[in-house]
């Protein structure tokens, strides 16, 4: 009988959040901030469309600038949601059940922010469909030997797969919300989303097969997507980029920044919505461990990168020295310090379990990884083979405006998600408690 009470409590706590939202005032304050930033996002895009990419600091030789560096940062953050959800599901790590739903939502929204950047960067964004192979009057095709075309397929696939994975994961909880809530508009809203889910053994059996298979496919997909993005760099003969360490270096860096952001979101949601029963000190500790582990792997990437540059000598070494004390040295040392110094505190369990320090360490890593993407891009592009073509990048107001606006887009979507949908996997938590497995 105790088990039954526990199951009902889990459903009530999670499904009860949308109709009886605990922190309405806080939510509205945050939502107002998010909407203000979202407005900035649209204004920045309107300005860009009206005046062209010249409103940014992008120029030759640094033609990529903010859009591509922010694109990589956002996509990297997204990857942790898939890894937490899919990899830990396959490994049978049940602590993931309290985190996977909103981590996956984070993935979706981060991928949306990421995906818009390369399109806006095109110069003629309305012709982005030229990236797709279709029969056209010019009888030409995309260049399939170019990482830029690979990018289109990788990100599109990733967006579709992570949306579907998140959606089939949420269906049973939408059904629980439909069945539990009394108000007609809530029942209609959740009822449409639940697709008439009834939880029959046959349905569950097929659902389980497809959920686990999608998870098993999603893990290599994450690796392939961020490896591919690293090839945007590594496939070009630019000093500081042309290195085989890039794919794994990018993947672990992505996971690192993502786990850092998941840790921040977890601490925030736990405090705001009072989820201390469902997100315990153990969850925080595990997130701390994941952040520390991926952070140390990223540190290895830094060492390997420096070693190979020194080993190669010549222009590679010159770029490395540029990073150490060139015009972008602040971003290099900023990345090294923010990424690797604070996480050392995570070796202590007491720090990992303390919400505020964990949040601050996550924030530091998120900023550090942003600096790393910036540093990798700017320091190599600004000075490659020809001294006469060297030139620095200076971000303009609209660069910052679009970046802040993309954070607003993320926050708006995320706040709507926590306000209206079950933010945790109630049925998987019940499965563990109620002996389903």
């Amino acid at each position, binding site marked *: 009988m105790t088990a039954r009470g526990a199951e009902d409590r889990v459903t009530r706590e999670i499904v009860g959040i949308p109709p009886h939202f605990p922190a309405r005032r806080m939510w509205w304050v945050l939502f107002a901030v998010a909407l203000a930033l979202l407005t900035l996002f649209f204004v920045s895009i309107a300005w860009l469309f009206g005046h062209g990419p010249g409103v940014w600091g992008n120029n030759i030789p640094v033609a990529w600038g903010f859009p591509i560096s922010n694109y990589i940062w956002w996509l990297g953050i997204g990857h942790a949601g898939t890894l937490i959800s899919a990899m830990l599901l396959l490994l049978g790590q049940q602590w993931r059940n309290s985190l996977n739903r909103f981590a996956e939502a984070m993935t979706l929204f981060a991928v949306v922010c990421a995906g818009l950047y390369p399109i806006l960067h095109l110069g003629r964004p309305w012709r982005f469909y030229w990236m797709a192979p279709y029969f056209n009057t010019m009888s030409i095709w995309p260049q*399939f030997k170019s990482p830029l075309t690979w990018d289109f*397929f990788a990100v599109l696939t990733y967006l579709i797969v992570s949306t579907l994975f998140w959606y089939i994961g949420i269906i049973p909880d939408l059904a629980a919300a439909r069945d*539990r809530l009394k108000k007609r508009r809530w029942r209609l809203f959740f009822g449409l989303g639940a697709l*008439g889910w*009834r939880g029959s*053994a*046959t349905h569950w*059996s097929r659902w389980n097969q497809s959920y686990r*298979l999608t998870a098993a496919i999603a893990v290599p997909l994450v690796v*392939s997507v961020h490896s591919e993005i690293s090839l945007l760099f590594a496939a070009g003969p630019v000093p500081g980029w042309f290195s085989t360490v890039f794919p794994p270096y990018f993947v672990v860096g992505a996971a690192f920044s993502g786990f850092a952001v998941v840790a921040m979101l977890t601490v925030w949601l736990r405090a705001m919505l009072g989820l201390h029963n469902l997100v315990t000190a153990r969850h925080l500790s595990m997130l701390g461990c994941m952040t520390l582990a991926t952070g140390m792997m990223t540190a290895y990437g830094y060492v390997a990168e420096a070693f190979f540059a020194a080993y190669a000598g010549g222009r590679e070494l010159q770029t490395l020295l540029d990073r150490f004390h060139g015009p972008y040295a602040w971003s290099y040392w900023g990345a090294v310090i923010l990424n690797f110094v604070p996480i050392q505190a995570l070796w202590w369990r007491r720090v990992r379990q303390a919400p505020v320090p964990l949040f601050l360490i996550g924030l530091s890593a998120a900023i550090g990884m942003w600096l790393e993407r910036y540093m990798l891009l700017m320091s190599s592009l600004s000075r490659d083979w020809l001294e006469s073509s060297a030139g620095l990048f200076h971000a303009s107001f609209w660069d910052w405006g679009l970046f802040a606006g993309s954070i607003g887009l993320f926050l708006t979507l995320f706040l709507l998600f926590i306000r209206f949908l079950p933010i945790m996997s109630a049925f998987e938590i019940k499965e563990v408690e109620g002996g389903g497995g």
Partner: protein
Amino acid sequence: MTGDPRPYAVMAEFADADALRRAAADLAPRRLGRIEAFSPFPVEGLAARLGTRDRKVPAATLIGGIVGAVCGFAMQAATNLDYPLWIGGRPLVAVPAFMLITFELAVLGAVLAGIGTMLIANRLPRFHHPLFEVEAFRRASDDRFFLAVLPGADFDRDAVGKALAALDPEAIYDVPAEPAA
């Protein structure tokens, strides 16, 4: 317990997953009708015990993956042959360069086919269903477990009722075939 001769199903309610498992194991070998179980979360081995487990989803995932990979590779090979770009004598069909999109489309095909098959085989979406007419069934997504016997050709309401009652359920319901007006 209405007098309706052919309900959609006769359904028993249980309090936990183990009771449902035991009930399913008990009822499955007897020829009372088609048996379906309902639970708020997946209960290991239940579908296998009821004989409703199939391999459509894994098969569709595999086929979708293969079709995606073949189409992905063929698309790249065909477009490169259709509009040849001779660059320093490099091969037109450059297998290593094509592998990434081949992989991505294999993933896309596998996932779309797997999830699509899951939804189609489960007959979802279906927004109305006779079971939703039973008020207590709303707890099937919360904390209650149900076992339903769907009438076969030789349906005997009393025999089914007795068999369900012998399982010591919390309650037994008749699920009307047509939604109550």
